[in-house]
């Protein structure tokens, strides 16, 4: 039943694997950014405090970028139209992409996390598997966000404009730089609607406070709801009869 979905997932993965330069960049770029972050904060205490939020932000950013651009490229190459003319359903297309890009998002997540722990020697509390699971959830959100935005962007230029619009405000508002509670009221209000707020809250609770997934049910449900909502909206934009 899901065979088309897996075929599409497999195809997206093969595409990236056959493009060694992209593959190397997918692996190297997170390491470069994490290293820069590590050396730019020489104080170990502060690094320990800030790194979880940075991890959440980078996972969101890389996952969004990768899936957004790739999904858009399919439109500009005309292969999307070809897919839409085939018997595959929208669920197959969205699910296939989600699975395919999730693989790379997870890869980046693991690289970032283990590099932070073993090379930057960042301390963390909480269960390892729970932290990774939560990071994968952020990865799912990132991929959904990328697919959603690129379903609306009509070309590469529009997509590139969306990157700062979607990512930068979240960096400022969602607690990466300053705690949300110290922001002006209207920004605190805005932060409530931005998914990264919940990603950062959740990962801090796990890594800094040593809490478990059971304690961050709210953050998890918001992220799941967000990802689901974005995929549904992306699916609506993929209706036959409306593709171009």
């Amino acid at each position: 039943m899901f065979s088309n979905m897996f075929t599409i997932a497999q195809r997206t993965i093969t595409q990236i694997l056959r493009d060694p330069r992209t593959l190397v960049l997918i692996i190297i770029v997170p390491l470069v950014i994490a290293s820069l972050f590590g050396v730019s904060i020489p104080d170990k205490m502060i690094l320990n405090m800030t790194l979880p939020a940075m991890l959440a932000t980078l996972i969101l950013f890389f996952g969004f970028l990768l899936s957004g651009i790739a999904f858009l490229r399919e439109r500009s190459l005309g292969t999307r139209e070809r897919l839409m003319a085939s018997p595959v359903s929208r669920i197959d297309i969205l699910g296939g992409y989600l699975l395919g890009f999730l693989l790379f998002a997870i890869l980046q997540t693991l690289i970032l996390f283990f590099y932070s722990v073993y090379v930057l020697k960042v301390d963390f509390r909480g269960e390892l598997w729970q932290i990774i699971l939560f990071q994968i959830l952020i990865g799912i959100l990132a991929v959904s966000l990328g697919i959603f935005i690129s379903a609306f962007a009509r070309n590469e230029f529009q997509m590139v404009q969306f990157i700062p619009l979607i990512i930068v405000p979240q960096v400022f508002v969602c607690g990466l730089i300053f705690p949300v509670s110290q922001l002006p009221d209207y920004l605190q209000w805005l932060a409530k609607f931005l998914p990264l707020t919940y990603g950062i809250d959740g990962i801090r609770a796990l890594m800094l406070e040593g809490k478990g997934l059971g304690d961050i049910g709210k953050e998890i449900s918001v992220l799941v709801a967000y990802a689901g909502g974005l995929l549904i909206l992306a699916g609506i934009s993929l209706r036959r009869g409306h593709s171009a």
Partner: protein
Amino acid sequence: MKESAIKIENVEFNYGHLKVIDHVSLEIPKGISFGLLGSNGAGKTTSIRLMLGLLKPNKGNIFCLGREPSPANAVNTGYMPQLPSLYNELTVRQNIDFFAHIYGLKNAQQRRKRVDEIIQLVELMPKRDVSVVQLSGGMKQRVSLACAIVHQPPLLFLDEPTVGLDPELRVHFWEYFENLTAAGTTLVISSHTMDDAAHCRQLAFMREGKIIAQGTPAELRAAVGKPDASLEDAFLFFIRHGEVKSNVQ
């Protein structure tokens, strides 16, 4: 009478305020090659997209093989878009295999056999494991055709399949198309060359979203009224006599 492969009733389609398809009605019998002829912007690609269900008409009805176009119906159709729409990083074989799979050839062994056959048919055996990005334009065109026909659909839409092909390959493509119709496949082919038109069993001349004439190549030539009129003459004739003729049929 033979059942028709495609039936278009009074279809109108707009891109925004631009009327691109203007009250088109058309019936395409099964098992023939049907040529949609027209200049740039006449609405050929849009018509094909409508028949595939990629676009929905603002007015009128479209039936493909007796049903409205839908994903469930799509296994029975093949589509070669105007531009070779392929996955550049993937090899020739991987591209064709992907489309074979999503069009329902699930059995890996059968699929492999079929994909090899089709690669042989479009004469790309030596290039089968080369990335599409490294192929010439005409080779991409052949891969694109292969992706459209690998599942042997009864109804095939080819949007300007012969553009950019060398003369030898053009002859080859047409030989192949004739084999397909002989085996019962219905072909809808868009083109702006009269060379292609001459190969089609039936033609529709399109201009500015309207069908200005329709019939067999012989009928259309005869309508000009000169004994040795070419299809080119016929096309120009109908453009000039735009209003007069739409009942030639």
